[in-house]
C-alpha cells in the first residue's frame, strides 16, 4: 500500500511543504528526541520513566491516549502525518533507521502500557497472540515461569501466561528472559508487550524498507529532499563519513592524538594494536572506520595497518592477501562498494559485544568497573572525577560517563554538546585544543543542534504547536496517513 501513498504524497507534499516543515519540526521531532533523552536518563520499565515521559508528551501536546475530547482528531492526524514524514526522513541510512525505530518502539511500549488490561487483551486477540494456558499447565510451570522471566514474585492467580512458539518470542529469548520448554516460551502477561513490540518492529522496518524503495519519487522533488536530509541530520547527528580534513593528518601524529583527542574506546584499540601488532575483526572495523572518519586516507590506512601487522605474526605477503582487501572494502573500493561509515556510540555500545581476545567496544560499557578505574587512574584522572564517572557507568549512562571523561581531560566544565559519536568526540577535542583554553567561556550551542558546523537554524526555545491542520486537504490526507 505504501508506495501508492507515496506517489500521491509527493504531489501534495510539494504544495504543502512549508506547512509540513512546521508540523514536523515543531511537533514530532522533539517528541522523538525527548523519548531518546528520557530513555537515556531513566530505566525504561521504571515508574519514573513513565511519569517523565507522560509529562513530556503532555507538554508537547502529543496525543497518546484515545481520549474523546475536542482537538484529538486534529492531533491524531498530526501524529500520523509526522510519523509518515519521519519515516521518509529516516529510512535513508541504516543508523537513522535504527535510531528512529528505537524511539518509535519506546513510544509504542509506553502507549501500550498505558492501556487498561481489557484493552490490552483485545489488542492481543486482534493480533493472534492470545494463547492462554490451562490451569493445570500453569500449576506445573509456574515456578519456572517466574524464575525464567525474572519477575519478583507475583501472585500466581493474577498472572496470565501465554504459551507461544519460541520463534515468536525472539527478543525475550535473546536476553534469556523467559522460560522455555520443548520449543515453547511461557510468557507472563507483563512481558507480552515485548512480543507485541517485536511485531511492531517488523512492521516498521518493512515500512521503512518500502519507503526507501520508493524514494526516487521523493528525491525528484528537489524541495523535499534537502529538507529531509536536514531534518534527519539535526537529530541523529551526521554520519562522519565525509570529512573535510581528509589527508590532513599524518601517520606520525596518531600516537599523540590517541592520547590527547581519542575517546577511550579508540585509545584502547590504538594501544592494543601497538602492543600486540594485531587486532581482531571487530577491532579493525571499529578503529579503522574511526581513523577514516578523522581523515586518514586509504593509502595511509594500508600503510598504517601493514606496518603494524608485519611487526607481529603476519608477513607482508600474508597481509596483502588477507587484510588489504578488507581495508579497501571499508573504504568502498571493493565488493559492493559501500562506503562504510564510522560507528556511532550507540552502535558500539549495543552491537557486537567483545569477547575473548577482543579490544573493541566501549570501555565504559564493556570493561570491568575495577579495570576501568585502574585505567582512569593511570591516565591521571583525579579520584573525585573517577567516582563521578563510575557512578554514571553504574547508572548505565555510558555516553555521559564518556562526556565526563572528556570534560576532565579537556579541563572544561561543560562540554556543550551531547556526545553520541567517537568522531564527534575527536572533532570537539581538536576544536578545543586548537583554539586554546579560552573557548571554555563560549556559549554552548542550542540544545538539539549538536553539530555547530551544520548550517542549521537554531530552534526557538519555545514555540507553540501549529494551530490547525485544516489548511491541508484534510479528508484526503487523513486517508493517506491513516496507515501510520
Amino acid at each position, binding site marked *: 500500500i505504501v508506495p501508492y501513498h507515496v506517489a500521491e504524497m509527493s504531489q501534495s507534499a510539494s504544495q504543502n511543504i512549508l506547512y509540513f516543515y512546521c508540523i514536523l519540526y515543531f511537533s514530532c521531532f522533539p517528541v522523538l528526541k525527548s523519548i531518546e533523552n528520557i530513555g537515556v536518563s531513566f530505566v525504561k520499565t521504571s515508574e519514573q520513566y513513565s511519569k517523565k515521559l507522560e509529562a513530556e508528551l503532555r507538554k508537547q501536546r502529543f496525543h497518546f491516549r484515545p481520549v474523546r475530547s475536542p482537538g484529538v482528531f486534529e492531533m491524531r492526524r498530526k501524529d500520523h502525518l509526522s510519523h509518515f514524514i519521519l519515516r521518509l526522513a529516516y529510512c535513508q541510512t541504516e543508523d537513522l533507521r535504527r535510531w528512529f525505530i528505537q524511539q518509535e518502539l519506546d513510544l509504542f511500549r509506553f502507549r501500550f502500557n498505558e492501556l487498561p488490561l481489557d484493552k490490552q487483551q483485545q489488542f492481543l486477540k486482534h493480533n493472534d497472540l492470545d494463547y492462554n494456558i490451562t490451569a493445570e499447565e500453569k500449576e506445573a510451570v509456574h515456578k519456572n515461569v517466574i524464575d525464567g522471566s525474572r519477575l519478583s514474585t507475583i501472585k500466581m492467580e493474577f498472572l496470565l501466561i501465554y504459551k507461544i512458539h519460541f520463534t515468536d518470542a525472539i527478543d525475550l*529469548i535473546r536476553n*534469556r528472559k523467559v522460560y522455555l520448554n520443548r520449543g515453547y516460551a511461557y510468557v507472563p502477561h507483563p512481558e507480552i508487550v515485548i512480543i507485541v513490540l517485536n511485531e511492531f518492529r517488523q512492521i516498521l522496518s518493512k515500512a521503512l524498507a518500502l519507503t526507501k524503495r520508493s524514494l526516487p519519487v521523493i528525491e525528484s522533488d528537489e524541495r523535499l529532499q534537502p529538507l529531509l536530509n536536514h531534518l534527519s541530520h539535526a537529530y541523529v547527528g551526521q554520519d562522519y563519513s565525509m570529512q573535510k580534513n581528509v589527508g590532513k593528518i599524518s601517520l606520525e601524529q596518531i600516537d599523540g592524538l590517541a592520547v590527547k583527542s581519542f575517546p577511550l574506546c579508540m585509545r584502547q584499540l590504538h594501544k*592494543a594494536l601497538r602492543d600486540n601488532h594485531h587486532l581482531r575483526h571487530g577491532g579493525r572495523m571499529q578503529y579503522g572506520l574511526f581513523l577514516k572518519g578523522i581523515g586518514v586516507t586509504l593509502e595511509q590506512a594500508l600503510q598504517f595497518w601493514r606496518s603494524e601487522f608485519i611487526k607481529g605474526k603476519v608477513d607482508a605477503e600474508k597481509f596483502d592477501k588477507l587484510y588489504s582487501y578488507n581495508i579497501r572494502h571499508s573504504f568502498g573500493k571493493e565488493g559492493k562498494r559501500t562506503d562504510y561509515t564510522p560507528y556511532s556510540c550507540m552502535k558500539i555500545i549495543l552491537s557486537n559485544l567483545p569477547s575473548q581476545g577482543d579490544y573493541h567496544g566501549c570501555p565504559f560499557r564493556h570493561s*570491568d568497573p575495577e579495570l576501568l578505574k585502574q585505567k582512569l587512574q593511570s591516565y591521571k584522572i583525579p579520584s573525585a572525577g573517577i567516582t563521578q564517572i563510575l557512578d554514571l557507568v553504574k547508572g548505565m549512562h555510558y555516553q555521559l560517563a564518556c562526556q565526563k571523561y572528556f570534560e576532565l581531560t579537556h579541563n572544561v566544565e561543560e562540554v556543550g554538546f551531547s556526545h553520541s559519536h567517537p568522531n564527534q568526540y575527536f572533532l570537539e577535542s581538536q576544536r578545543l585544543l586548537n583554539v586554546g583554553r579560552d573557548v571554555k567561556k563560549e556559549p554552548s550551542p542550542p540544545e538539539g543542534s549538536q553539530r555547530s558546523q551544520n548550517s542549521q537554524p537554531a530552534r526557538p526555545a519555545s514555540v507553540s504547536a501549529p494551530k490547525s491542520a485544516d489548511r491541508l486537504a484534510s479528508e484526503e490526507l487523513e486517508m493517506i496517513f491513516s496507515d501510520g
Partner: protein
Amino acid sequence: MAGAGDEAAVLPDLLPVYYRRLFPYPQYFRWLNYGGVRKAYFQNREFSFTLRDDIYLRYQSFTNQQELEKEMQKLVPYKIDIGAVYSHKPNQHNSVKAGNFQALEKELVFDIDMTDYDDVRNCCRAADICHKCWTLMTIAIRVLDRALEEDFGFEHRLWVYSGRRGVHCWVCDDIARKLSQTARSAVAEYLSVVKGGEDTIKKVHLTHPIHPSIEKAIVLVKRYFREYALENQDILGSKEAWEKVLAMVPEEIRENLQTEFINARNSDKRWDMLKQSVKTTKAIFTAEEIMLQYCYPRLDVNVSKGLNHLLKSPFCVHPKTGRISVPIDLKTLDSFDPFSVPTLSSICRELDSNKKPEEEDVTSKESEPESKRRSRDYKKTSLAEPVRIFDEFLKKMEHSRKGVLLEQSDSHRDF
C-alpha cells in the same frame, strides 16, 4: 602414531584413495537431501572446497550424489565446507540478477573452539589440546545438547569432532533450518553466558532468581567440576592460579581467603573455603559464577548467526592432524578421545592390511558395481563406527519425517 608433519605430507597420496574408496557418499547425500521433500534442496546447497596450496573455491553445487562424487574425486579438496541452501544453484549465482540470489535455509550450527578457553586452561595454549582440557568440550556438549533438546525442542542434533581442537553441532530439524538470522543470533545469545573480552575479569553474572536453563547447566557443570577444575587443572593449586580466581570474589572476603589459602592442603579444600566464605556476602552466586566462567561452553556466536556462514563438513580430513571429522555418539561421550579418532593414514593402512581376509568373497571382481565394493571397504576400517553413528542419526531423522508425512496424509484422508 604419525606426527602432524607426516599427516600433512601424506595428503596428496592418500586423499584420492579416501575419496575414491572410503568417503561415505550415500549417507552424506541422504543427509543433505533431507528426503527430497523440497525440490532442489540438495542442488541449491553451497559447498566450498579448499584445494591444495590454499586455492579456495566458493559456490560449488551439485545436481546429485554422482556429480558430487565425481567432482570430489577430481578436485581432491583438502577441506570441504558446507554453506546454505540458496534460492538458485550456487554454481550459477553469477547469472542470477544481483539481489535475487539469496541464502534461504541452513542447519543451525554451533562451533566451539578450544582457543576461546585460553584464559581458563593451565595445560595448553591456542591450538593445542590434551586429555585434561578436552573435558571442556565434553561439558560444552552436555550443556548445549540439553538446552537444544529440552528448551528448544530440537530433535536432530549432530555433534561432530572438528578434527583438531573443537566440536561442531548441526541442528537439522525443519524449524532450525528455517530460522531467520535474527532468530539464530537470539538462540546463540540465549546459550551464551560467559561474556566480555580481555578487559573483563568477571565474565559471568548471575542474579536471583537463576534462570531454569542456567540452573540445569550448573547441575551438569558440577558433575565435572571437582575432577576437572580442582584436580586436573588445579585452578587453586598455586598462588598464581588462585589469584586469578580470587579476583572474581567480593573484595570484602578476598584478603581473608588469600591468607587462608596458603595454609590449606589442596585445591579441593580451598574451594570449600571459598564456597563457605561467599555465603557471608551479598554475592551469593559467586561460586556458581566461577564454575561457569571456567566451564560453561563458549560459542562463536558469529558462526551460528550467519545464514550463509560456512562450516567445515563432517567426514572431511583435517589437513594438519589428518584426523577425520567424525560424528560423536553422545551415549559414550565421556569416553570419546580425540587422540584415537581415525586418521587418514590409519584408515588407509587398515584398508591395505585387511585386504586378504576378504578373499572368501570370490565374486567381488570387476563386475561388481563400484558403490557396492566401496560400502564394504569402509567397513574394513575404523571408519565403520563413525559411519554407523551417522547412519543412526539419519535413520532417526527419516523416521520422524515419515511420521510427519503420515500425519499429513491422515489429515487429508479425514472426510
